[in-house]
């Protein structure tokens, strides 16, 4: 369970690819309960991540996280931009401390998301993926099944944060777009073998 410049780089590049591949799906999810821009927002951010990571050699994981945070903050916009941007900022801070295990770093990311967005579990946001994922990480049992189960769990929730909250009960029955993009975040983390 170690983050290195190499595996972090590989992880985040494949996270970016996943976002680009699934742009339309994220758009569709956001059209159903939001304003239809989550796919484009994240794809824009993903392109920026790739540009930054491919054009530069990084000497530390912290620098990678910082660069990704800035990339997302300056290109995504919407609600997702500051939330993912804050997550990577929090992760960058944590990774420079003694407690730089993957679970501690990701947990710091979650804390920043919650500080920024004030969402708690059950409000049908990305937090509903991050919270169980962090818990699973800590218990050493993060799996794809667990991730996508958490994503799917947002389907039956009623949104009380973000744009989907305007729908009230009508938000029930749709998977949350930000939860889904966070699903890719954790899925590519798993695939990157960082946790092995």
């Amino acid at each position, binding site marked *: 369970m170690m983050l290195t410049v190499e595996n972090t780089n590989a992880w985040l590049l494949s996270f970016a690819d996943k976002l680009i591949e699934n742009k339309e799906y994220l758009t569709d999810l956001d*059209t159903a309960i939001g304003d239809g821009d989550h796919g484009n927002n994240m794809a824009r951010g993903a392109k920026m991540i790739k540009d930054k990571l491919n054009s530069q050699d990084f000497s530390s994981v912290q620098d990678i996280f910082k660069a990704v945070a800035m990339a997302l903050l300056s290109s995504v*916009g919407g609600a997702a931009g500051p939330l993912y941007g804050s997550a990577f900022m929090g992760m960058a801070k944590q990774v420079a401390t003694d407690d730089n295990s993957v679970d501690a770093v990701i947990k710091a990311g979650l804390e920043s998301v919650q500080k920024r967005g004030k969402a708690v579990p059950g409000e049908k946001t990305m937090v509903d993926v991050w919270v169980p994922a962090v818990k699973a990480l800590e218990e050493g049992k993060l799996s794809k099944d667990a991730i996508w189960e958490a994503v799917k769990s947002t389907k039956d929730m009623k949104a009380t944060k*973000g*744009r989907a*909250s305007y729908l009230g009960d009508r938000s029930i029955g749709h998977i949350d777009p930000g939860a889904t993009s966070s699903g890719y975040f954790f899925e590519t983390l798993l695939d990157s073998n960082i946790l092995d």
Partner: protein
Amino acid sequence: MKKIINNPADVWEEMLRGLSFTHSDLVERLGETGVIYRKYEGKGKVGLVSGGGSGHEPSHAGFVGKGMLSAAVCGEVFTSPTPDQVFEAIKKADQGAGVLLIIKNYTGDVMNFEMAMEMAEMEDIKVEKVIVNDDIAVEDSTYTAGRRGVAGTVLVHKILGAAAEAGFSLEEIKALGEKVIDNIKTVGVAISPATVPAVGKPGFELADDEMEYGIGIHGEPGYRREKIKSSKEIAEELVSRLKEELNWKKGDRYGVFVNGLGGTPLMELYIFMNDVQEILSKEGLVFDYKKVASYMTSIEMAGLSLTLIKLEDEKWVEYLNQPVETAAWV
């Protein structure tokens, strides 16, 4: 999707180019950003910065200029702008007297503008904010992101713009802003949806004979969908909603603003205004200010919103009527 555009991915960039070319006498675009700022900012006055996603034209860039905004930050279509760009706008707007951010209440807008505030504070720029939440279609509870900011925002720009020009301090303008916002309520109706170019299909669907009350300016759902009604019936519905909020009494002084959502011609807006005026006259309200315009649009959405502002202070009327030099305000 039937639009006069080029590549959907280029809409934001090309629109900003067209806009800054057209209004080069009044405003300038900051580099490659979405920041449109006043060419001639009054020295020593408080700066006003607003913005949000694009697709609401002429909001917000059309209201940049003498007597209104110092700068507008234009995000991608229906997407809040990023904090770094808002920060650039703040720096442009700051003339030493501080900057007020006028934010429409959307999770994304609030977070991005707040991050920019944090950046500005780190550079010792005085920044304050007001959050406009005039859309009464949404329940104002802990179960929602709160009420949305819609057409009433433009009246906030206008009133605060006049106050800034008159030399108010940052604290005074913020206090005035909060008071004004408390007195502005809006509710809308859509009869056909908008299509975000990069998405390529409408944000929602309405049958040929349907309309939706309370729709948001990004196509967020409203509070009721039904068969299309006459202008008079729509006016009655919207006024009755507003009355529940504003609890007016005979003789109260009000401003009325009928805002088109982009695809609705002035013909319909004037007819609707006539119906509103008849209903409100019966209620005994006094109209100190009247406006019909498509100022806070939702791309080509057809429909309109009705904004009422309780004119608590007669100064506000003066501020609303003060001439300005902007691309869009008449």
